[in-house]
């Protein structure tokens, strides 16, 4: 390895380790890391900061910002609160149904909207219901854990659900419809397996008393709390139509027409915001997730710097030189992607590994490699509570809710409580991802 390769890779890995170890200083660490990476490539003559910025996939950032704004319009229409309240009613306060319904809702919502925002609005309703039911630690852990995993899987099931899939769409690695056709079935299968294992084998509700009075009171209270909370149809209708049109355009508009995915998102969300101009102006001024955009921008700069040193080419070549068939190389790559994501989270892993994936995709069916990678990243995101942004947020909301069990003991949802859910989910999603990729390879 050359000196510049060692230094820039060291900056990238060091930055990722530091931001994972000190999440409260995450933004400072990654922005400084990006600056250091740019300095190194400049000094080594591999490219200036301007060159690195030119390598940034701005289309991905545009799609993320646009979809984030669309989610905020749905928030203003009270969509997520209404959905959560409906799920609470439909569950009839049966703990198994609560787990199932909320997981399914989060899976679907995460495929279409920013899962962090959706979770922020759905989780308080669920926590209220869990408080009314006085659930125990085991049930709380598995319900919230499976909910987070369902969010991750929903994000991986759709090309607009989460950053890794958006990156594949934005870079043109896969078309919208090809991604849906190839990623939705395995993601749904993985969710089905996880729910089956949880409800039939783990049975987190088995120690809860079947208390008809408690259930009846819980349903009545949930009804009373949401007695007149209604969807604002005026605010909901136009953005919903805009989203539907965007989905159609992503499927039918050929890339060569110039109607690229980011332009469709840009225009579609713009049209949705124009329908409620005052709200739209306020959202654009105050609700674009600058922190997420800056974090990803810094990652892209660092990855661009590493790319310019040729490290990714060397890793891809090293993988190709492994004395095993290409499908085994693919399995090694997917396992590595899952574990790296567990340690460093989805954004950094996906940004760094996509270059290697592109090399593999020249020797294997591209959809097998990319969907396998997206699912492996999803598996890694589900391994630890800290691997996905939604995890620490769920932890904070749960702490704030001050839940107690039937004996009055406080309930927790933290890193260690999540581990059994994470290990099971990682195993299932990673296995489904690898199996799906191998099946896709065998079918060509």
């Amino acid at each position, binding site marked *: 390895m050359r000196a510049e390769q060692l230094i820039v890779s060291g900056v990238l890995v060091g930055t990722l380790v530091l931001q994972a170890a000190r999440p409260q200083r995450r933004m400072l660490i990654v922005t400084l890391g990006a600056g250091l990476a740019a300095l190194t490539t400049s000094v080594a003559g591999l490219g200036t900061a301007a060159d690195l910025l030119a390598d940034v996939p701005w289309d991905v950032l545009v799609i993320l910002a646009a979809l984030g704004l669309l989610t905020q319009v749905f928030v203003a229409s*009270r969509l997520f*609160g209404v959905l959560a309240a409906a799920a609470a009613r439909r569950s009839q306060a049966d703990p198994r149904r609560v787990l199932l319904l909320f997981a399914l809702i989060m899976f679907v919502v995460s495929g279409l909207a920013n899962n962090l925002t959706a979770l922020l609005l759905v989780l*308080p309703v669920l926590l*209220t219901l869990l*408080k*009314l*039911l*006085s659930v125990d630690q085991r049930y709380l852990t598995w319900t919230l854990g499976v909910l987070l995993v369902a969010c991750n899987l929903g994000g991986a099931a759709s090309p607009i659900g989460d950053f890794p899939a958006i990156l594949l769409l934005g870079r043109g690695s896969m078309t919208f419809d090809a991604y849906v056709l190839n990623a939705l079935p395995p993601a749904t299968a993985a969710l089905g397996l996880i729910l089956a294992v949880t409800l039939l084998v783990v049975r987190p509700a088995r120690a809860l*008393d079947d*208390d*008809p*009075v*408690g259930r*009846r*009171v*819980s349903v*009545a*209270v949930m009804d*009373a*709390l*949401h*007695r*007149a*909370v*209604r969807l604002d149809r005026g605010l909901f209708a136009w953005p919903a139509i805009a989203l539907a049109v965007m989905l159609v355009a992503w499927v039918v508009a050929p890339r060569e027409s110039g109607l690229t995915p980011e332009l469709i998102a840009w225009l579609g969300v713009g049209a949705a915001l124009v329908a409620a101009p005052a709200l739209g102006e306020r959202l654009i001024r105050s609700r674009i997730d600058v922190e997420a955009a800056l974090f990803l921008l810094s990652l892209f700069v660092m990855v661009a710097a590493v790319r310019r040193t040729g490290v990714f080419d060397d890793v891809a070549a090293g993988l190709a030189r492994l004395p095993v068939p290409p499908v085994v190389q693919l399995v090694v790559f997917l396992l590595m992607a899952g574990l790296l994501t567990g340690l460093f989270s989805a954004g950094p892993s996906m940004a760094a590994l996509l270059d290697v994936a592109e090399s593999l995709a020249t020797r294997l069916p591209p959809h097998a490699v990319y969907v396998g990678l997206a699912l492996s990243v999803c598996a890694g995101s589900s391994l630890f509570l800290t691997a996905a942004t939604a995890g620490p947020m769920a932890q904070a909301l749960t702490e704030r809710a*001050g839940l*107690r069990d*039937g*004996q*009055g003991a406080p309930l927790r949802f933290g890193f260690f409580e999540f581990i059994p859910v994470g290990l099971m989910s990682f195993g299932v999603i990673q296995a489904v991802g690898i199996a799906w990729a191998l099946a896709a390879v065998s079918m060509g």
Partner: protein
Amino acid sequence: MTAGRLARLDQAFRVAAGELGHCTAAWLFVREVAAEAGDEGVEALRDGLGRAYPVLDTVARRWLEGARAPHVRPEGVVAACVGAARVLVVGLEAAHLDALVPLLAPSTRIGLVLQGTLDADWERVLANWGGRVEGTDVAGFQRWAGARSVLVTFAYGVAGGVAHVQPAWVRVSGPDVRAQFRALIAWDVLRAPMFVYPRWLVSVPAEDFSHVAGH
């Protein structure tokens, strides 16, 4: 009623009382427990949680005496609010506010002081009135003052010159407040004396109010 069930109902009542008000929550609990476990269940509920929640104790007692629904008669409050440009509500009783809000003139601004002794998701509380009721904090309540402004709070029994009200009332009421609002209304939502210590509530002189409604 088992200790486990009581502990669960205790936690559930705190959630309900925080976002619905003690009186509304108490009627809901008594009705649902009675539907599942009959009057015996209501008695057990009163024995188990009555000391902790005096409004629940009183409502359970009234249920056992034959009452089957809360007394929600907003007419007196509406009459006192005629011509008001602003009505600011201190304290929360969802059933009573649900009845009052549609009866106030559309041109009247309605505010709710977002202050309670139990946790509440105030966004959800306000969403039930579809934007008709605005939230305000204690510090901002004076922005609602004026010659055409009315202050309303809920009382839990008014007798012997004393009214039991929610603690938030004490934070907004003072010698100078009487002059800043056209009327100060106590809406008696319980209409019965409490037999246990009025925890969660404070006692104030009934003469602090220009109107006592609900009787």
